[in-house]
């Protein structure tokens, strides 16, 4: 009871400190000349798109029929063509029996469309997902090579890991795009995903290696003594246990990968970061957009954390 009361107090202090920091920031931004325009942000998520409907040929309006909130326009062309168009009632620009020239607007239709921020979020999401999957496969294979008894496989995997871990991701992305992109004629998306996957793969390989080596030797011996060969023992005994142990560091790696994916914006892939930059050029709402972009990344990463935590709970039944 007592400790619970104390805990509440400490949580209260935490909230207080965070609140003070926020207030400090607010006061600081008050001192500079910046107008916050949060109202400009939502339209970059979704917006109401107006699609003007032109007459396809010279024609006469035969009839206008009122549907619920649309108007159905029937037109007859001079050469006997007939056409039916639905436009928004509010946007109706013609009346019955009116003569139209080709290209005259009959009205417009409206639809909700995803804005650049939502597209950017989507691009970041699938880019990270694709590179995570490839990274995991590359990492798994490399990790297995790393613990293999074959010297060549071990040398190759060590070379790969050292090469990737020793150079900055940004430089790797440039090399993939400018060098490999040119030599192998691959698109920027493929270059981006490969750079991220190969980068992540090196780290995943080390995590997998550590996981495999953390499994007691007796497990492999028990599996072998039952007549399993090494691949069978790996698949059924070692890797499932190693996977469970490496889940927390793997989660950290994939969360890093989501954040690192922002670097592909330098090769003009319109991910969340690049979308943010583009929106800023048209709104000048620099502060707001960067905060929003940060928040969106935070959402992606925390959803991933939750998913991994759930998998961990599922796997902990044998503990």
């Amino acid at each position: 009871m007592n400790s619970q009361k104390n805990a509440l107090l400490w949580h209260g202090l935490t909230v207080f400190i965070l609140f003070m920091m926020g207030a400090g920031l607010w006061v600081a931004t008050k001192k500079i000349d910046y107008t916050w325009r949060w109202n400009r942000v939502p339209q970059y998520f979704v917006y109401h798109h107006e699609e003007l409907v032109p007459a396809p040929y010279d024609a006469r309006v035969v009839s206008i029929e009122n549907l619920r909130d649309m108007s159905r326009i029937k037109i007859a062309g001079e050469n006997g063509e007939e056409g039916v168009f639905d436009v928004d009632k509010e946007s109706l620009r013609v009346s019955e029996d009116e003569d139209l020239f080709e290209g005259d607007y009959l009205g417009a239709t409206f639809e909700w469309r995803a804005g650049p921020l939502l597209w950017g979020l989507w691009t970041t999401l699938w880019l990270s997902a694709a590179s995570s999957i490839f990274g995991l496969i590359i990492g798994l294979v490399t990790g297995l090579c790393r613990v293999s008894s074959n010297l060549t496989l071990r040398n190759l995997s060590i070379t790969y890991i050292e090469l990737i871990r020793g150079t900055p991701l940004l430089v790797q992305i440039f090399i993939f795009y400018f060098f490999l992109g040119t030599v192998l004629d691959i698109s920027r998306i493929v270059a981006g995903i490969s750079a991220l996957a190969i980068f992540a793969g090196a780290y995943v390989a080390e995590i997998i290696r550590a996981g495999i080596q953390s499994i007691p030797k007796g497990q492999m011996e028990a599996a072998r003594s039952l007549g399993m060969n090494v691949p069978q023992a790996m698949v059924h005994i070692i890797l499932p246990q190693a996977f469970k142990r490496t889940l927390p560091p793997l989660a950290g790696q994939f969360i890093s990968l989501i954040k690192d994916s922002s670097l592909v914006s330098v090769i003009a892939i319109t991910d969340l970061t690049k979308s943010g930059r583009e929106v800023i050029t048209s709104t000048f709402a620099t502060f707001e957009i960067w905060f929003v972009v940060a928040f969106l990344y935070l959402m992606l990463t925390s959803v991933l954390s939750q998913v991994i935590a759930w998998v961990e709970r599922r796997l902990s039944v044998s503990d």
Partner: protein
Amino acid sequence: MIKTVDLKKTFIGRGQTVYAVDGVTTHIKPSEVVVVIGPSGSGKSTYLRCLNGLETLTSGQIIIDGVDLTAKKTDLNLIRREVGMVFQQFNLFPHKSVLENIILAQQVVRKRKRGEAEEKARMLLQKVGIAEKENEYPIRLSGGQQQRVAIARALAMDPKVMLFDEPTSALDPEMVGEVLEVMKQLAREGMTMVVVTHEMGFAREVADRVLFMDQGKLVEEGTPEHFFTSPQEERTKLFLRQVL
């Protein structure tokens, strides 16, 4: 059944060559229970591990059921499924339930159908006396229960020989009995067994033959009566004085 000829196993560490097993020659007959005893570091565990190829020998020959283990073209995996092994540390698969522990190798190695493997597993769990634990995970079992599951797991492969590597050394004293009881029952059923143990009582009661090893060498062998009542070698006498 198992023939070892001048078996040698050396480890090289820090520039020193250690003779873990130094020229052991013996012949284990079908349905024979052979107990290997000796002081720590005498190479008895290493000898046992050589018998199913967990250690590669330096020189010598092992012939199991007419198959030369050291021949290049011998598939060790084929031999191992005929030779069951029980470890000091149980080595159950912690991510699988008791039943799955026993089923897995049957399916993967022996290619048995799930139903058949399950039936076999339940029968063996009954035999080792823990049928009610089939859905538990190993971590929730006591040491004695884990070791009995490990024995059932090895038996599920229908081995011709069972190797026991100090099966009771990691157990609480009060759980030693239940494991030894299972092993005695196996011996009575005519299983060929090689047991490395410090349980002199078990050796005396169950063994057909006792091997005494020291410093990698087979010092003395004989029936339990001979071994415990009138040992010939000085080293054996010294050892027995200290443990009995």
